Each structure stands twice: as C-alpha cells, then as structure tokens.
C-alpha cells in the first residue's frame, strides 16, 4: 500500500497542482500593488479580478501568505455590534462567509455555531438589550437570554450563584460562527491567482515613491515595482508603512495573545465570551479549546507570549468551565494588532491620491475579511468610496465623528 501511494505521488499522470503563483521575478509594472498578503490583501485582489476585470495585480507579502494576524486569530465571526454603521458592515461580511466554500470550490469550514456573550451586571444586560434591538432592526440574529436558556445552550457552563461573578443573562447571537482562518487566506489567494493575480511571498515593501502626491512605485527587498495605485493592508505594522507615505494614523500596536488546549470530545457548540473576566473560548472542529482574551496592557511590536496572560486566561476560564482545569495547553502565540481609539477600522482614501488604506483592524478584523476585500476592490476600481465604508474614513477623526464599538468588541473579538 505505501508503495502504491508513492508510485501515485510521483506519477506524471497526476502532477502537483500549484494553487499560488510559482516563484518568479517581479514585473516592472502592475496596475495595482497590494501590500500585505493577509486575508484582506488577497481578498481585495480576488474581488478586483472577479468583479472589476483588473488582473495585473501583485500582492506583496514580506513573510508567507496568511502568516500575520490572519493565521493567528481565534476566528470568531459575528455581526452583533452596537452602531448602525458597524452592524451593517459586519452583517454583509457574515453573509459573504456563508458562500465562500462554494465560491472557491475549497472548504473554508464555515460553521454557524452561534456566539454567546455573558453578563454579570445589570449595566451589561442593558447594553446587551440595546445591541439586540439594533441588531434585530438591521436583520442580524441576536436576542437576550436568561440563565435557563444559557443552561440549554451551554450545559457545562458554571452557572452557580455562589461564584465570584454570578452570571445573570447573556446576548445570544445565533447568526455568529467560525471558519478555518488559514483556509480563508488560501481560498482567496488560490481564486485570485487562478484569475492572473501574482502573489509574491518573501517580498517586503521598504519604501514608497511618491511624487505630486501620487504613488508611482514601491521599493522592495527584490527591487523597485511601478504601480498605478497601491493598497496597504498590513495590520500590526500599519503605522510604519503609512509613515513611509507621510501619513499619520490614530493607531497603537498592541500584542494579542491566545492559546489552545489538547483535544476533547465535542462538548461546546457555541462560541462563548465573558467580557467581565476578559476571556472567550470556542471548541475547534478538531476538539481543542481555543482560549483568548483582551490585549496586552501596553503597546509593543513583539509576538512574545507572557506567563501573566496565561495565568489570567487560565483562572478566568476555569471559573466558567471548571473541567478545563485538567486540560493541558498545547500551544500559545500572539499577533500584533493595530488598535484604533474607537475600535472601528480605518478604510478608504488617504491623503495621497492613489494610495488606499485598509488598517486599524485591531483584534476584530478576521470577520471583516470578505467585505473588506469587496469594498476595497470597489474603491480601487472606481475611485469612489462605497457607502458601506464611508463612516470608516481616516478623516472621521478630524471631524470628531468616531464610530464607537469599544463596548461591543472588548473580549468578544
């Protein structure tokens, strides 16, 4: 049997398929250069090729495809935000997620698990009611639940009244879910490359050539590339790249850590978030428990993990699910996240005419990958800012019109 497999593997009849651009030299010129090969970058390339007939595109990635926050996030997909602008935007993204596996002919493992956020105070319940009403009004599935309903959704949750923070209710977002993060990046990249887009990994942008307020070329570690326009989608290093274009952003870069246990039988359906102890959890389809929490306490450009964060996540999660005290941790990691003051992204035009921004995705941008790609591609192709992302322009900070999603983000991602 192993021999037969080997023969099959080396047979000329079944050549290896290349899903992404094989390594080749950079062209001298591309119509669009997208800086950053995370989910947002490759999604933008895909929608440009698919809907706007623009295929002379290079996606430049300094490391490997999806090796930034796209490959590090905990894959909470939800739309139960607070502001109308936010809910409408993330709602569209969830809708796109549902169709992606079919669209790519490649399984991104989208699962409609539902997401439950827990409350321990009346103030939290009031804000949940507010969110549930805004959500329902805009067609997003969210409702308030009491402890009896929570018990039915998550039988293993510690609902004791004698705990340190007894749970009094929750926000049940039955439209929420999860997907395999790597597969989302691979699916978009594969579908973009099939349409002629070039993905160049190990290609770092080190400078931007701007004359008369227009970007003409990008400098890379593999030479200079001219471009008709450029999009930046580099998450944690957004400020540094924008700085090369002389643009200042309202962003601070903070590490965000997560960890995963050994696998268990399937016991936890919904994704559960407990903002009062800064922890959230989900069980992957492999059975592991992925546990995450709030950002690090101070800005840093480093993906180191800390014992303090492990201790705080572990103690918090054991209060909710005491049996997890017996689990062993398998892995830990961190990403660097581009945090904005209002927990909403910065998307759209920049002070440089043909240079577009997709930044400020902080701890919540994986869920937005499809809609970012779709709206950014429309912006690049037409030069007009789509209505859906108008509220997220950089200029909102100069008009003092922030889109406050701090309360609806916190430990829910």
């Amino acid at each position, binding site marked *: 049997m192993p021999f037969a497999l080997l023969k099959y593997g080396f047979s000329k009849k079944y050549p290896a398929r290349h899903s992404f651009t094989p390594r080749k030299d950079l062209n001298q010129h591309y119509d669009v250069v997208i800086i950053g090969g995370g989910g947002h970058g490759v999604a933008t390339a895909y929608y440009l090729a698919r809907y706007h007939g623009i295929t002379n595109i290079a996606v430049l990635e300094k490391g490997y495809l999806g090796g930034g926050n796209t490959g590090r996030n905990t894959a909470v997909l939800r739309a139960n935000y607070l502001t109308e602008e936010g809910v409408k935007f993330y709602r569209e993204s969830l809708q796109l997620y549902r169709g992606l596996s079919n669209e790519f002919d490649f399984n991104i493992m989208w699962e409609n698990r539902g997401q439950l956020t827990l409350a321990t105070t009346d103030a939290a319940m009031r804000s949940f009611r507010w969110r549930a009403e805004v959500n329902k009004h805009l067609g997003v599935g969210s409702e308030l639940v009491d402890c009896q309903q929570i018990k039915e959704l998550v039988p293993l949750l510690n609902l004791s009244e004698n705990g340190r923070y007894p749970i009094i209710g929750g926000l049940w977002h039955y439209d929420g879910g999860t997907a395999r993060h790597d597969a989302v990046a691979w699916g978009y990249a594969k579908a973009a490359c099939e349409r002629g887009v070039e993905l160049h990994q190990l290609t770092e942008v080190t400078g931007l050539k701007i004359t008369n307020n227009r970007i003409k070329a990008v400098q890379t570690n593999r030479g200079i590339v001219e471009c008709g326009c450029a999009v930046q989608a580099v998450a944690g290093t957004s*400020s540094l790249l924008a700085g090369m274009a002389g643009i*200042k952003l309202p962003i601070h870069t903070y590490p965000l850590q997560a960890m995963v246990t050994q696998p268990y039988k399937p016991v936890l359906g919904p994704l559960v978030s407990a903002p009062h102890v800064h922890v959230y959890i989900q069980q992957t389809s492999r059975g592991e428990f992925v546990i995450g929490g709030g950002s690090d306490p101070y*800005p840093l450009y480093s993906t180191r993990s800390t014992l303090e964060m492990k201790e705080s996540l572990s103690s918090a999660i054991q209060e909710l699910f005491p049996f997890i005290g017996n689990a062993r941790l398998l892995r830990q990691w961190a990403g660097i996240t581009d945090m904005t003051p209002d927990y909403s992204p910065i998307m759209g035009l920049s002070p440089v005419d043909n240079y577009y921004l997709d930044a400020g995705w902080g701890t919540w941008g994986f869920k937005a990958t499809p809609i970012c790609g779709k709206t950014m591609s429309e912006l690049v192709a037409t030069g007009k800012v789509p209505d859906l992302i108008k509220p997220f322009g950089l200029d909102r900070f*100069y008009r003092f019109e922030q889109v406050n999603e701090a309360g609806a983000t916190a430990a829910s991602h």
Partner: protein
Amino acid sequence: MKIIHCPLNGPRNISEFAYGGEVEAMPDPVSCSGDEWAEYIFMSDNPAGLVREWWLHVATAYWFIAERNTVTDEIIKTYPPSELYKQRIEFAKDID
C-alpha cells in the same frame, strides 16, 4: 515577571503599573485649530523602537515618565516628570 523601576517606589512588578500614552506637547486648546487638536489627541507615530511615555504606579497614584523600546520590550529609564516639566501646566486656564 517584568520589573519597572518606579522613581517613587523603587523596583515593582509591572502589573502594578498602568500605561498612560506618549509624552507629547499639548497645543493650546483655546487657540489651536480643530485639526491640531485632533492630531494631538488621536494621531501617533506609533514607532517601532524608542518611545517616551507616561506611566502610573496605580497603588500610590504616582505618574512618572518611562523610556521604552517597543520592539525589544526593554524599559530603558524612568524618571519623575519634573525632569521634563519645569513649570506647572494650568489645564483649565481661560476656559469657562
């Protein structure tokens, strides 16, 4: 455990401290433009490297200044604000 040398309390666990943002000169809130004010309160160079920041020792409510490397996670030095600020700043002056 990471240690910060507090100018008032000596070496303490970093968990006793709170980060308070970069040290920046405040434009005059009465005479500056809206853009200048937005720039001051929102925008940041967010450098990868050396930064000068406000930190608070929470238990003693003591604010001081720390210089830190945001790539290596090293605290390079800490000192009392009086080393930078020689005069008292009247925040509420001229505002009714």
